[in-house]
């Protein structure tokens, strides 16, 4: 494989304060030199954990680097990396980095067309993949992308005899590299010194929900700055036990499993398979744990299901101690210190419930549990904090190595994401958009000057997120700026932000906030049939159907109280004034929500125009002719009387 001369522009002038020798390979070498026998990585294979020390780690990376160079990978070459978390793939990424090549990880479950697009845009000629599945996928794409000359794989199962087609095992590459290292005495040192702080360490990608994904190159300097900022804030500490189970193509995995792992000497644990990650997590009991809000929520559900089927005594204990702890945690977040009796009782609960539950989840040793990516439900957040886990949120995008703002252990608030890391500047511009500055911000999209120009203004990175500072000086993230709308009175708000806060209530399944170009805000609410039905049973409210239940006066009052609570957290202007409980749930079959339950506001505005008109006319109820599409495709109509409720904020308006 021949390759073009180095295409990497010299961008050293952008960061005059970065030191040339300060890069990931240097950090790896430092670990291998100072702590050669310490464990750097553990991989579970057939039930036991195989250990790799820092000395092995460096050797494996250098062998692969020599092998890859022999196979034609050179500086500036973009190398596709695809597969589940595997030590070999981490080694290979660092090997590419050694050669000043650019690893470009892709999601292993991405459709072929996306992979093809990525390969064509980035001129990829070499790929490092996990197993036969990925090799097959790439072989199928060779017709459309014949440049792909080298495919190296980790797991040789089912892949014998394809060497003539440029498909080689990483193991063989490493063997060739070992031979080269043995024959060329200076190669080892040379490989260790090639990388530069201004080199691109990894090429990640935007999600591509609008148009083609954009390449986001992060340099050694960026990722190291991000890791050091986070470490300075006590966000990571040296020698964490970390579980590498999140997709390799996600920025967080590169930062946690490679950058922070190498810089701060983490022990990275690689699960046997994706499906066993939960079980393997429990074996390892890491000290640092990141999970998406959705994953935390799934964990909560697992606990609730487990408790629901357990025996009476244990359930009774759980049902006493869990609400007690949640209540205590809520007060603590409000700044009230628990008394000595409450603390003692919490200790009893810890022995009986909290500590066993933490152990069940494999989070017994977790000191730093984190979540990020989207807003976490208040009940989920409080639950895990009550369980004794110091769960915290952070905020960031791929563009700033995902580490920009985080909650500090001492001042957690339910509504904000915390304060900027040291070394990161945050400001909110006149449009309410969050702007960031710092060494962790990338220098521009990959070969896309236009998009780069759009995303920077006077050296500030435009996040596209709307935010504001709360009274305590912490950053609140409200949603995307592009989703921000204005009422007729000029109050700016983000419907999804308010909707999400409404949905945090267990009784509200869905909500649609209306108010763009109107006098005030209102909401169409879908009650959660299961939760409200349960509530109705417990409170003796009779009902026959969803529609019936949604209009029962006690239920309307229940939802009103929930919305009032949300209103209390919103600023004065964009508060909800009125709401209506809808007689049915938004249904993807009616086109009101997508299959992933994202609202389609246009359809909702159209379908429920009479209801919306009634809300803004000030009427107290509306008769609605509902068109129903049956599963057979037939249509029918039904008249429903829906009551419209005016909230406190609406009453004040007069």
């Amino acid at each position, binding site marked *: 494989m021949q390759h073009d001369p180095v295409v990497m522009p010299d961008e050293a002038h952008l960061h005059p304060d970065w030191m040339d020798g300060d890069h990931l390979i240097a950090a790896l070498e430092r670990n291998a030199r100072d702590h050669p026998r310490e464990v750097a990585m553990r991989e579970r294979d057939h*039930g*036991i954990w195989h250990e790799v020390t820092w000395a092995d780690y460096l050797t494996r990376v250098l062998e692969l680097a020599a092998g890859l160079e022999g196979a034609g990978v050179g500086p500036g070459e973009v190398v596709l990396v695809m597969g589940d978390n595997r030590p070999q793939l981490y080694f290979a990424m660092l090997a590419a980095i050694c050669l000043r090549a650019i690893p470009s990880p892709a999601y292993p479950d991405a459709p072929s067309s996306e992979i093809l697009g990525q390969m064509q845009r980035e001129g990829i000629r070499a790929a490092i993949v996990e197993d036969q599945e990925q090799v097959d996928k790439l072989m199928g794409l060779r017709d459309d992308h014949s440049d792909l000359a080298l495919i190296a794989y980790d797991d040789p199962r089912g892949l014998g005899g394809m060497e003539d087609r440029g498909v080689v095992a990483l193991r063989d590459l490493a063997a060739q590299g070992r031979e080269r290292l043995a024959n060329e005495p200076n190669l080892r040192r040379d490989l260790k010194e090639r990388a530069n702080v201004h080199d691109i360490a990894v090429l990640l990608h935007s999600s591509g929900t609008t148009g083609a994904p954009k390449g986001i190159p992060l340099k050694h300097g960026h990722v190291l700055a991000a890791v050091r900022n986070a470490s300075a804030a006590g966000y990571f500490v040296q020698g964490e036990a970390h579980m590498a189970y999140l997709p390799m193509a996600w920025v967080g995995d590169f930062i946690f499993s490679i950058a922070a792992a190498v810089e701060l000497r983490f022990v990275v644990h690689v699960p046997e398979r994706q499906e066993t990650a939960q079980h393997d997590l429990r*074996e*390892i009991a890491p000290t640092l744990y990141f999970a998406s809000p959705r994953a935390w929520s799934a964990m909560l559900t697992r606990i609730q299901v487990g408790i629901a*089927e357990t025996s009476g005594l*244990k*359930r009774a204990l759980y049902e006493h101690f869990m609400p007690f702890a949640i209540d205590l945690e809520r007060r603590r977040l409000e700044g009230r210190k628990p008394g000595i009796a409450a603390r003692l009782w919490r200790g009893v609960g810890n022995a009986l419930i909290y500590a066993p539950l933490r152990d069940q989840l494999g989070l017994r040793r977790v000191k730093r549990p984190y979540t990020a990516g989207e807003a976490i439900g208040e009940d989920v957040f409080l639950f895990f904090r009550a369980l004794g886990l110091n769960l915290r949120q952070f905020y960031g995008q791929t563009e700033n190595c995902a580490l920009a703002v985080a909650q500090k252990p001492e001042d957690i608030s339910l509504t904000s994401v915390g304060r900027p890391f040291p070394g990161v500047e945050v400001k909110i511009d006149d449009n309410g958009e969050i702007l960031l500055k710092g060494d962790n911000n990338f220098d521009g999209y990959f070969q896309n000057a236009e998009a780069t120009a759009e995303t920077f203004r006077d050296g500030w990175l435009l996040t596209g997120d709307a935010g504001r500072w709360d009274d305590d000086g912490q950053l609140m993230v409200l949603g995307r700026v592009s989703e921000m709308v204005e009422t007729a009175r000029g109050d700016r708000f983000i419907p999804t932000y308010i909707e999400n806060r409404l949905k945090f209530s267990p009784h509200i399944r869905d909500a649609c906030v209306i108010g763009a170009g109107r006098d005030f805000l209102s909401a169409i609410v879908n009650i959660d049939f299961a939760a409200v039905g349960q509530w109705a049973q417990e409170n003796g409210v009779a009902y026959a159907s969803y529609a019936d239940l949604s209009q029962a006066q006690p239920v309307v009052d229940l939802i009103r109280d929930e919305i009032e609570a949300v209103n209390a957290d919103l600023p004065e202007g964009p508060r909800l004034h009125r709401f209506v409980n809808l007689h049915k749930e938004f249904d993807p079959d009616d086109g009101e929500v997508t299959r992933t339950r994202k609202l389609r506001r246009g359809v909702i505005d159209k379908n429920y125009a009479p209801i919306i008109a009634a809300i803004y006319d000030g009427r107290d109820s509306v008769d609605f002719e509902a068109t129903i599409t049956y599963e057979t495709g037939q249509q029918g109509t039904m008249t429903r009387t829906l009551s419209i409720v005016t909230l406190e904020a609406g009453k004040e308006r007069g």
Partner: protein
Amino acid sequence: MFYRLSGVYHTRYQAARALWPIAADRWQVILLLALALAAPLFLSPLYLGSYLLPWMIWSAAALSLTLLMGLAGQLHFGFAAVMAIGAYSAIHMTRAGLPFELALLGGGVSAALIGTAFGFAALRVKGLYLVMATLAMQYLVDWVIINVPAISGGAQATLRTPAVSFFGLPIAGLEARYYLALGWAVLLTVFFLNVRRTSFGRALIAIRDKDFAAAVIGVDPFRYKLLAFLTASFMGGVTGALLAFCYYRAVTPEQFSFNVSIQLVAMVLVGGLGTAIGSFLGAGFVLLLPIVLTNLVAALGSAGILDVSQNLMAHLPLIIYGAMIIGFLLFEPLGLAKIYDNIRKYFLVWPFRHSRS
């Protein structure tokens, strides 16, 4: 509740097969061992000598028998005879001037040889017929001991054990005898727990489950059945010798009568076949419970709470004892060890639901 299963991982398969991979189990074992070692400090000589000491020796006997009955599935209703052979052999050897350590081994070896000779029956018969064969052994051995004066010292004779020392430590005082018994019980426990993890133990289990199926997969029933008899009889023989030297300090044929064999079988069954903890629990149950019940009934009687005739008073403990054996086996046919296992599992998955399987 107090079990912590997270953070238990293995980097070698050997470690994954550890006896107690969970820390809480290790702590329990260490605690029990420490209590057993410190027992002379806080137990009165009465309790140490009449309760704990025999408990340890009978547990060792139950461990020997459970290897044969629980692991290898060979029923043995004459195990007291095996112990008798060990006891008489050892006592005669020490009288002949052999050091105690060697006499213990000799007792084990002679018990193993004679026990294995009867074990040949097991090669031909199974189940109830094997019970018959081992019963025959019990009676034969009893008869020989009683009727050969060279062994028993005469029909109604009692042979006193001579003063001996174990590796320089005189086995005279209560404490020395207790520690010797404890050491043997611990040694057998460790041996038993490890046998389960060896190919020998797995072969025995295969034979227990189906001997011809085991033969099909290459386990030689001839060899392993005899090995099972040999091992168990050796262990039983040494235990018998220790029973004589550490507890009775004399031997008479009645100490190893048929009743004793039945009691041993009861210990193994009530405790739970084929488990180490079951041997201790079973021995404790069979040995100590009658004493506890007698004391309890006597105390109730003298306090005037229990007003029954003297005759019934004597039999009441036995009635309750019998009812409790039936009750426990009805409640959990797999014995006390299974009850312990259920309790452990209950706390192991706390606060979630545990399954009883």
